[in-house]
Structures are given as structure tokens and as C-alpha cells.
């Protein structure tokens, strides 16, 4: 296998997408043949409220350069209030991550509905570019020999 070096490095981004909105939005983007970077690895979750803030830390530990959490717009959660809790949780977690020394921008969250295929594409494009600009993440990452 070719070694990853500065020349061919590509950001690896972990995205948690709620089944009812963002995942459907991503699906729609695919149906519409919209092009977005393949740097993103989607994990489908039943609701953004399913995303335990520890998943974010684990993502960085396992070598992701960025983590994205996406769900329905506030008010639209399939389970009525899941994403209101998500919002509180991640407002706090985002600040804690920054305090812990993870660079601003490595963790992001977005509300994307099932109809917003274009917003999904634009978000992935934008987040990928932002993380590319930050470069490979070494902070909170397990030693390379774990890979």
C-alpha cells in the first residue's frame, strides 16, 4: 500500500447523518448526480440525538481529520425534540474540544433537511476545504502503528 505523505494526503472526515433528514438529503444529492468530495465517511444514525459527544473524541482518536454531525432542522426532528438536545450538547462539546486544543473547525455541526441536497453538497465541499486547509490532524490521535 502506498504511504500517505504530504503530497497525496487527503482529509478524512467522519459525518454522522440522521436517517430522517440529512441522510435522505445525501441520498437526494446522489439521485440528482450532484458531485461532492469523497473525503466524507457517512455513518447513518436514527437521530442526531443518537450522537454521543464521545463519538467525536473517538473519531479523532481513530485518525479522522474532521468530524461533522448533521440532523434535521430544529423543530423538524422526527422524534420531536432530539435535535434540541443535540444542539445543547454540541454547543458545549464544541467549546470543550477547542479548550482541549482541537483546532476550531475540525468539529462542525449542521442542520440539513431531506430536501436540501444542494446544502448537503455545499456543506461537504466547504467542510472538506476548511479541513484541508487545517492539514492532517495529529491531536488526540492514536499512535500511527495502531492503524
Amino acid at each position, binding site marked *: 500500500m502506498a504511504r500517505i505523505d504530504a503530497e497525496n494526503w487527503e482529509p478524512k472526515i467522519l459525518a454522522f447523518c440522521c436517517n430522517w433528514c440529512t441522510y435522505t438529503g445525501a441520498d437526494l444529492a446522489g439521485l440528482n448526480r450532484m458531485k461532492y468530495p469523497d473525503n466524507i465517511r457517512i455513518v447513518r444514525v436514527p437521530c442526531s440525538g443518537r450522537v454521543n*459527544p464521545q463519538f467525536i*473524541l473517538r473519531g479523532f482518536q481513530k485518525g479522522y481529520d474532521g468530524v461533522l454531525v448533521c440532523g434535521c432542522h430544529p423543530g423538524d426532528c422526527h422524534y420531536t425534540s432530539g435535535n434540541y438536545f443535540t444542539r445543547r450538547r454540541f*454547543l458545549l462539546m464544541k467549546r470543550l474540544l477547542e479548550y*482541549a486544543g482541537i483546532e476550531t473547525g475540525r468539529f462542525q455541526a449542521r442542520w440539513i433537511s431531506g430536501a436540501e441536497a444542494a446544502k448537503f453538497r455545499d456543506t461537504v465541499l466547504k467542510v472538506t476545504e476548511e479541513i484541508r486547509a487545517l492539514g492532517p490532524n495529529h491531536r488526540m490521535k492514536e499512535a500511527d502503528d495502531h492503524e
Partner: protein
Amino acid sequence: MSDVQNTLRDRVRSLLAEGKISCFIGWGPTRFKDRTIPKFANKPEDAGELVYNEHCLSNLAKYALDFQFSAEVAGIAVRGCESRAINRLIADGRLTRSKLYLVGIPCEGMLENGSTAEKCAFCRHRNPVVYDELIGEPVAEQENPPRFEQVLELESASSEDRYDFWQREFAKCIRCYACRNACPACNCMECYTEQYRTGWQGKQANTLENSVFGFTRAYHIGDRCIECGECERVCPMGIPLMKLNRKLVKDVESLFGSEESGLSDDASHALGCYDKEDLEEFM
């Protein structure tokens, strides 16, 4: 203070003799003049061994959990920090108010190695916020102690420096979990660190896993920390854990406008509820 100690002994003696309580949790002597340890008085004659002086550093509240399944009433000495911890434990459904008899003691701050203990320096509630009887007169509260000074200082450092700071600190951690055991907000029946099979937390005592433990623990209690400073006091490696906890306390206060934890036994806490008008950053 010796007055308080005498009154405390007398009161505990009669409470035990009258059968109002089955046990009293207070402080007792050690071999050293400037150290005390938690002490359980079970019989009226034990009351004479209780100690109260400026070296009573331990927060006793967590020991009340030893009586959570007991049918009898347990007595406990509560200063500001213990009283808030007791409220926290009641709010979290771990203790029942009617099974506790709280003997309140207003506190002017404890001494650690001759000067005001770190954990008392930023205290805003020296008088117990809940009690059944009070020993001694209420004391004046400290006016706006700079609780968040250290947090603001670290916040203003660069991201890289912050990272290095915490990794350097957690490199020292030996994962004894003393911080968790002493913490009145860490009161889960089963801690996530013990859920081996789920794999939430790597067992390796290396810097990375230690810091993951540290950040996760802080987050778990972020909206419930009562700022008693026990975690930091008991840490054998001198890791400034309150600098982490207070970051969360500060953000919880400024983001969600919550009041300090443990002022009442009301079960609502910031991450267990929401407001539709919460700050929107994820649009």
C-alpha cells in the same frame, strides 16, 4: 471553632441517643494535627471523637450514598459544599431527603498547608443551602470570587498551547479514578469507564487515553458540577481538574443561563432539557 466542635458533639450525641439518626457522618482525627478524615459515629459515645476545625477538607456528601438503601435516617454535617452535593445527589435520584438529617455548619474556608485551601478560595456558598439545624452563626459570603480567572487565562492561549497543556497534565494521570470516586456529581451506579465490553474508554494508561478520560469525565458532570473542588484535591498527581470543570460550568452558565448546580434539589439540569430559543450556531 472549638465551640462548633463541642456543640456538634453534643448534638450528635443526643440525636443518636434519641434514635433520630442511626449514624452520623462527620470528621475524625488522624495521627497528624493538621489532617482529618471522614468519621462515622454509630453510637452516642462515638460523638466525642468527632472533630471540627480548619482542617476538615473532605467533602462528606458522597459517603451518604453508603446509606442509600438503609431504612434508617443518616445524619451528616453539611457546609456549603456538602449541602450542594447533597442536593445534587437528591436531584440525581440517589438520595431521599427524608432519610437524611442535615446538621448545617457555616464555614469560613479550610486550610491546606497553612493557607486557604485551593478548593475554598473560589467558594460562593459558605453557608449551607439546606439543613435541618444550624450550628453557629451564618458567615459572610465572598463577594464574586474570580472563579473563572484560570479558565479565561487558558482560553486566551493558542490552540497548540492548550493542547500541549492538557496533554502534559494528563501524561501524569495514573487512572486511579480517585477524582471520580470523590465527586458528588459522578454518582452513576455503573461508570462508563467500567463498561469494559462497550469499549467507551481504552484501559491503557497512556497520555491520550488519560486525556480522553479527563475530558469525558468533565463533560459528563459539566452541567452538574457543584465546584467543590474535591476531584482536584484528591488527585494524587496534582492535575488541575477544576480548570477543566470550570470551563464547562462557565459555558453552561453563559450559554443556557443555568443557575449553579446544587442550589436546590430540583432535578432539571442544562443538558437534560432544552430551550427552543437556544443559541443557533449550526445553521
